[in-house]
């Protein structure tokens, strides 16, 4: 769906380009905020950006293109997303490293209904994540797209669905934190 294909009524169409630009800016800031909290090792904050009935997946392009349900990280519901964080912090063993997210091309691709009244925003963006071990050069870990559905709750945009679809055929070594 292109920008021109924004459907339905709602604030975006009603006030034409200005509202779309404002929404796009808001989304860019949101995406950057999440990238920053992940880069700053504050993954505990991630679930607060999702609705209770959320779907969060990190999934290969291979599975996504074939419509296969398997995902590398699969969380349906906020409980599973919180469990992912608890398991990571409390049980998992891995070599420490630093990650950095580069997000670009954040764009609104559709609005259904009035976002101010529970309507849903569809958005997407590109990401690239680098990984640096403490004794080696950074490498590219993952590159791909965010395919998102968001809703506004109490003024805040929350993810109802975030599909992190990576282009990589395979993950080198491990995928440790959400993307």
């Amino acid at each position: 769906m292109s920008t021109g294909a924004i459907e339905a009524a709602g604030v975006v169409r009603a006030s034409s380009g200005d509202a779309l630009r404002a929404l796009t800016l808001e989304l860019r800031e949101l995406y950057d905020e999440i990238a920053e909290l992940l880069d700053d090792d504050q993954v505990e904050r991630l679930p607060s950006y999702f609705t209770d009935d959320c779907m969060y997946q990190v999934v290969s392009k291979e599975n996504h293109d074939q419509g296969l349900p398997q995902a590398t990280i699969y969380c349906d519901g906020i409980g599973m997303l919180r469990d992912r964080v608890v398991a990571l912090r409390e049980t998992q063993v891995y070599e420490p490293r630093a990650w950095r997210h580069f997000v670009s091309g954040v764009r609104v691709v559709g609005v259904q209904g009035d976002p101010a009244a529970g309507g849903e925003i569809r958005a997407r963006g590109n990401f690239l994540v680098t990984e640096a071990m403490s004794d080696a050069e950074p490498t590219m870990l993952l590159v791909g797209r965010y395919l998102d559905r968001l809703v506004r709750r109490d003024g805040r945009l929350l993810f109802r669905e975030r599909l992190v679809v990576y282009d990589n055929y395979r993950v080198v070594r491990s995928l440790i934190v959400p993307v």
Partner: protein
Amino acid sequence: MGKSLQSETDAARLWPAEGWTRVPYWVYTDPAVYARELETFFYGPSWNYVALDCEIPEPGCYKRSWIGERQVVVVRAKDGGIHVWENRCAHRGARVCWQNKGKVDSFTCPYHQWNFNLDGRLQGVPLKRGVLGKGGMPPDFDNAQHGLRKLRVHVEGGSIWASFAPEGPGFAEYVGPEMHGYIRRLFSGRPLKLLGYSRQLIPANWKMYIENLKDPYHATLLHAFLITFGLWRADTKSESTPVGRGEHGIMVSANVGKTTAESAAEMARNKSRLVLEDKDTVTPRREFDDGKVVGLTVFPSVVMHQQANTLGMRHIIPKGTGAFELSWTYYGFADEDPELTRLRVRHANLYGPAGYVAMEDGEVMAEAQFGAAEYAHRAAVLEMGGKDVAPQDHMVTEVLIRAFYKYYREAMGL
């Protein structure tokens, strides 16, 4: 003085006198050893896992796969039969098939457009008779002699296996009766449903993965997630059984659910008060009558797991001495209810490159490869559970790894 490099190398490749309770680190790093492994195991009289039949549901459907470092194509022919051939043109060696999956009537090599039947036979050679009386193949060129290299194929209840050896043991003989029984427990012929893939490149020697699934000792210590949520414990009733000549292994345990045990209290990282919000993640629905949790290693190419409600094939694809690809194919059954499929997908969070359990395996194997790299002259110690290779009925043992290296030395002549 006067000592040749060759003799130094030979001296360094002597197995330690202690035998199978030691593993010299050169088995993980020496390119000559690796080359012999590929010939002896992957390209020898072994049966290698290549695909599930639900991946190629219709005639003309194909999937690329690997045996060792050789790429093969698994194809369903018009009569429904399954063929496996090397993805390497009979003409100049270029890859004939350029996509991982698809559906075709025949295969045409993009280089000179030699055309092959679904079963690998050469059907057509462009300009075979030349142009205007000039060129072309010699009159004695026989298409029948220039097909793609075909492998022997065995289908076991929907799992597809192939062997490079034109003759040799059949599948049942290769895996042995006990393993065959466990494979049939998973692959009874009930139609399969493909759920998806996870692929990772682990920077470690491929045998470390073979060892990983022969090592219940580590599972009780490294994998705090399993311990914490009761999916696996040191005091769980279990069996570790080497089969074949020690190359294959069967690990069986019971899923006991979350309880506290004295042995768990000894484990430093145990977090007994930890609670998951989503109980489905650690609460499997009973589906096999025997209540068992099973991990099967069919050497050299695959580990099959059934843990909670996730079912998967872990295809081991070596990439040189220091890396291997681990390709996970997750499946269920075509006739199961959607809720069970959902549980399988949820429980698969245990596995793959981000798995609560499997991530840690990739991490420690990569670290162990670092430990092997500069230390060919030293050896790992495998004495947990004693020094012999007889089956044991508990987890605190390295018997399966010892049995594996007993077999390995015989097969490799080391």
